[in-house]
């Protein structure tokens, strides 16, 4: 999403943190896996002037249904409208604002960063270790790093890499899943 790239590269760090009225919400939309259904959702956002920060789509356990995860911003009324308008679509089965409930959010980034052999490469590798990221490709001049985590973690990582010379970034956008209701189990699993 073009909007999301702009948000990431500029606004997230230059603009002051958004007010409460413009909170970030993660919506999970279950829609029929049929041609054109995604564009119905995306079209609804643009037609009604809602914003999309990130968007990702994938299959649910039932292959007839896809889950669309949208990160958007807005005040409570706007978010309520988005949920209701999406729910109106004939092929949308469920719309959840997962923000308000215990959930886990992740996104992944592939970062192409300059890292010439020597101190620079060591510096990048130490950041990779701290952020529990992964080197997935390497050359004389640079590396491609796979990082995942919530938005804040991924963005902090990118910011720390930026002085080294980030050549390209690809981000998946956010995906989310509700936490298991059993809190003890979640803690035990070390999440």
């Amino acid at each position, binding site marked *: 999403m073009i909007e999301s790239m702009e948000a990431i590269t500029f606004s997230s760090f230059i603009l002051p943190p958004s007010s409460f009225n413009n909170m970030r919400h993660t919506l999970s939309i279950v829609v029929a896996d049929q041609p054109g259904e995604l564009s119905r959702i995306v079209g609804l956002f643009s037609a009604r002037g809602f914003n999309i920060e990130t968007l990702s789509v994938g299959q649910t356990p039932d292959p007839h249904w896809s889950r669309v995860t949208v990160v958007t911003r807005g005040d409570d009324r706007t978010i309520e*409208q988005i949920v209701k308008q999406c729910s109106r679509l004939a*092929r949308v*089965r469920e719309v959840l604002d997962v923000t308000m409930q215990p959930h886990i959010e992740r996104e992944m980034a592939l970062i192409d960063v300059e890292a010439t052999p020597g101190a620079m490469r060591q510096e990048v590798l130490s950041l990779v270790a701290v952020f529990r990221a992964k080197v997935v490709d390497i050359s004389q001049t640079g590396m491609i790093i796979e990082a995942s985590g919530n938005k804040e973690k991924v963005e902090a990582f990118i910011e720390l890499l930026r002085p080294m010379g980030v050549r390209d970034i690809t981000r998946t956008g956010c995906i989310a899943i509700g936490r298991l209701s059993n809190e003890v189990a979640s803690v035990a699993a070390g999440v």
Partner: protein
Amino acid sequence: MSAQPHTLIPAANVPLADAIQEPRGAEILIEALLHEGVDSIFGYPGGAVLHIYDELWRARDRVTHYLVRHEQGAVHMAEGYARASGRVGVALVTSGPGATNAMTGIANAYMDSTPIVVITGQVPTPLIGTDAFQEVDTVGITRSCVKHNYLVRDVRDLAPVVHEAFHLARTGRPGPIVIDIPKDVSAARASYSRLKHISFPLIERKWPPDPRAVAEAAVAILKAERPVMYVGGGIVNSGAAEALLALAEELQLPVTPTLMGLGGFPSAHPLCLNMLGMHGTYAANMAVAESDLLIAVGVRFDDRVTGKLATFAPQAKVIHIDIDPANVGKNRTPEMSLVADAREALCALQAEIKSFGQPHIDRSVKRRAVWWERIREWQLQQPLRFTGSGDHIKPQTVIRELHRLTNGDALIATDVGQHQMWAAQFYPFKRSRQWITSGGLGAMGYGVPAAIGAQLVLGDQMVVAVVGDGGFQMTNQELAMAVQYDLPIKVLIMNNGYLGMVRQWQEMFYERAYSEVDLSVSPDFVKLAEAYGAFGVRATRPDELSDVLSAGLSHKGIAVMDIVVSKEENVFPIVPAGGNSRDMIVHSEGV
């Protein structure tokens, strides 16, 4: 197949025999439409729908196709048919320009929640995406103004799609459905049986009134000192007029209908304050402004009703009843809401209120005596009025005279503009579905085709298209269609030689700079009517009005009444866009 040994058909021949008997997509479509009870289709042929028209020819004894003169007319006729009957209207157009011409009607049906199914032809599937002749991405361009749409890529999906489309069109908040059928799909063969289930698990959305919300609302209504019922198209769509009347009478509640709600409550009823909003009555707008409880039923707090939202009904708590959850809280956040069918909700409310017992109800009614005094004062202070006629026919007089001559029984379809507002103000409606107008979209050209569609439903009963000289010229070619099928609509043109509503705004808000609103060069509408084979008649002086209207209305066939009205008449009251009832200009002396 039967496995009995005495079967006469050799097993090897069975697939072949079946293949021969399998119907084409076009035939499946017609059968599916017939199963849905379709008796009339408004359409216009073209390359991509040739197979369908071929089947229509074969099925001409079972379903009547009406050949329109422009695809916009086809969809408006389907809308008029749907609005007058409460059934789903059907339009059939070809690909490309057929589909784009139909767009206005589709958008109109979407804005006004009218149940229609529009079938569009599409280029053959192998050509989709190649910029083929008469190709447009119909599902793409209609997506944002349909309730749902389909591109049928496999003939086996066709019947289930049609059945689902009709179900979607008429359930919940009604709306338009587009079915785009590529030419090779209407040619392909498949078996047809009326499937009980549809191709995809339909997500049923039913909203029975929540008993707790009903109880809460009932208490609020009983306690309210200055309640107003603000009712809209949802009353008409859900057939809630009776339930509304019963509840309003039980509790002596003032009722103000929106433009789309006209007819949902009898205009002449003593509880009726008549229309609210931009051109609503003084009493209705004042009552809303001072109300402490707004009971909003089947409405969406449209800007033409609310003006400036922040100051709309500022003292009122709101109970919002609507079948579309997205309408609730979209513009105004209600204190209480009931997502439900209007009729079910009103019945539940009345039952709940009754359970409190008559003494409670009596006390509640008594508490509102002061409120009614207030309302009666407003009504006396500022009734709908207009200045005397002089040498020119006053447009308001035309509507009053039309009302008198039709005993208030005619179905009125209108175009968009000043004449529409005058018709809304000065023709008291008796029943639901007596008033058909383009509300949300404000589509000029709606009146004549919508009247034709309605006439088909009403048979011999009087249907009058009240139009302006501007809008009439957008779709007047459909007179040919009306003549062809002998659909005896009466067209009343309020001819002021201007695009009147725009001119009024230019007069009031743009220092009388009458930019591009002069329509004084128009055809002779009487001769035009005659050219179409209709009856034409004209009035230019007040003393001619009655006779001319009588002549037109009593004509057996299609009649066009060209009523030349005073050129610079304005619609009052008017709440300027973005204003509130305090900004209301009640009559011309107030300007």
